[in-house]
């Protein structure tokens, strides 16, 4: 049975009390939830610390991140990406790479580069508790993302929506299927034993249904990220999340 769009819209309009949306943290065990919430246990804090140090590092051209981005100006930004940058949409990781390249003269690393992850983690930490506010100018991109979300992929011929909308809360093998709200990226995933980006997580799902993932940095990842952030609008950003 297909869930009519109107019903979904009505559910979203009910507000916080009647909101049927649940973050991935609500699908985890109490001990894992505690691991995420306690900064002394959350391994993502290793990257947050490194990101903080990188902000003050002097690059080869004598520039530092904090020369431009001082004080609390960056608080909450992780909840506002992807955004329109000129005529193109850009993710937070893309923005970090762009800034590193243009201002500091460093080579771009992509969303899973060491320094980009550390800076993303530091920004995510400073966005903890901020409601996710998608860029209203990206409606077209979100629509493209929604289309990909409903498109069947791979040898298993599955669409994202079949698990994460229609079967959310049920189990795949032993693991609960979450609703896939991107509220805590970059995440420390226990399966990876490291920090990773949303693009990496989406790639995992695509290889999981035995599809060939899109090329690194492809437009499709951006569209899916824009769609997912729109879908999670209003949910609180969790900072650097831990996931099983």
């Amino acid at each position, binding site marked *: 049975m297909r869930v009519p769009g109107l019903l979904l819209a009505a559910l979203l309009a009910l507000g916080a009390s009647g909101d049927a949306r649940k973050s991935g943290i609500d699908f985890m065990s109490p001990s894992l939830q505690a691991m995420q919430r306690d900064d002394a*246990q959350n*391994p993502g*804090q*290793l*990257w947050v610390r*490194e990101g903080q140090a990188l902000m003050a590092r002097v690059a080869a051209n004598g520039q530092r991140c904090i020369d431009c981005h001082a004080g609390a100006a960056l608080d909450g930004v992780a909840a506002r990406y992807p955004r329109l940058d000129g005529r193109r949409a850009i993710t937070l990781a893309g923005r970090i790479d762009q800034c590193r390249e243009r201002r500091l003269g460093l080579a771009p690393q992509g969303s899973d580069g*060491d320094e980009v992850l550390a800076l993303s983690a530091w920004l995510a930490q400073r966005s903890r508790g901020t409601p996710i506010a998608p860029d209203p100018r990206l409606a077209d991109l979100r629509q493209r993302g929604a289309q990909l979300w409903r498109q069947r992929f791979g040898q298993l011929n599955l669409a994202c929506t079949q698990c994460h909308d229609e079967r959310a809360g049920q189990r795949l093998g032993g693991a609960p299927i979450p609703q896939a709200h991107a509220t805590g990226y970059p995440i420390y995933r*226990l399966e990876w*034993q*490291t920090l990773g980006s949303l693009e990496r997580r989406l790639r995992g799902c695509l290889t999981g249904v035995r599809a060939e993932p899109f090329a690194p940095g492809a437009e499709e990842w951006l569209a899916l990220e824009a769609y997912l952030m729109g879908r999670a609008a209003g949910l609180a950003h969790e900072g650097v999340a831990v996931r099983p």
Partner: protein
Amino acid sequence: MTVRTLIVVPPAIRRGDVFNVRATIGHPMETGHRSDGAGGVVPRDILRRFECRLDGNTVFRATLYPAIAANPIMAFTLRAERSGNLTFTWEGDRGFRHSETVALNVGA
């Protein structure tokens, strides 16, 4: 890449109180059993020893093995009679060695 650590000790402790210490280090803990995708094996690179000293006296010590996950967290309890310096040392394969020192403030 620089070594990342995260050490949490209570900021103020009363003499004789039992308190929690948590020490996390960023380390891949490569088991030595994984394939490198080209017919070979990724060589083992793990931490072997962890030691915590209070002013030179060992107060906690652990031996680590390949089955321990990456970025290991050491959580243990201590009791201190006086202030001092807690030194955390991790040693591992390929000559890895990293130390961090944290001041311990014990009040009356």
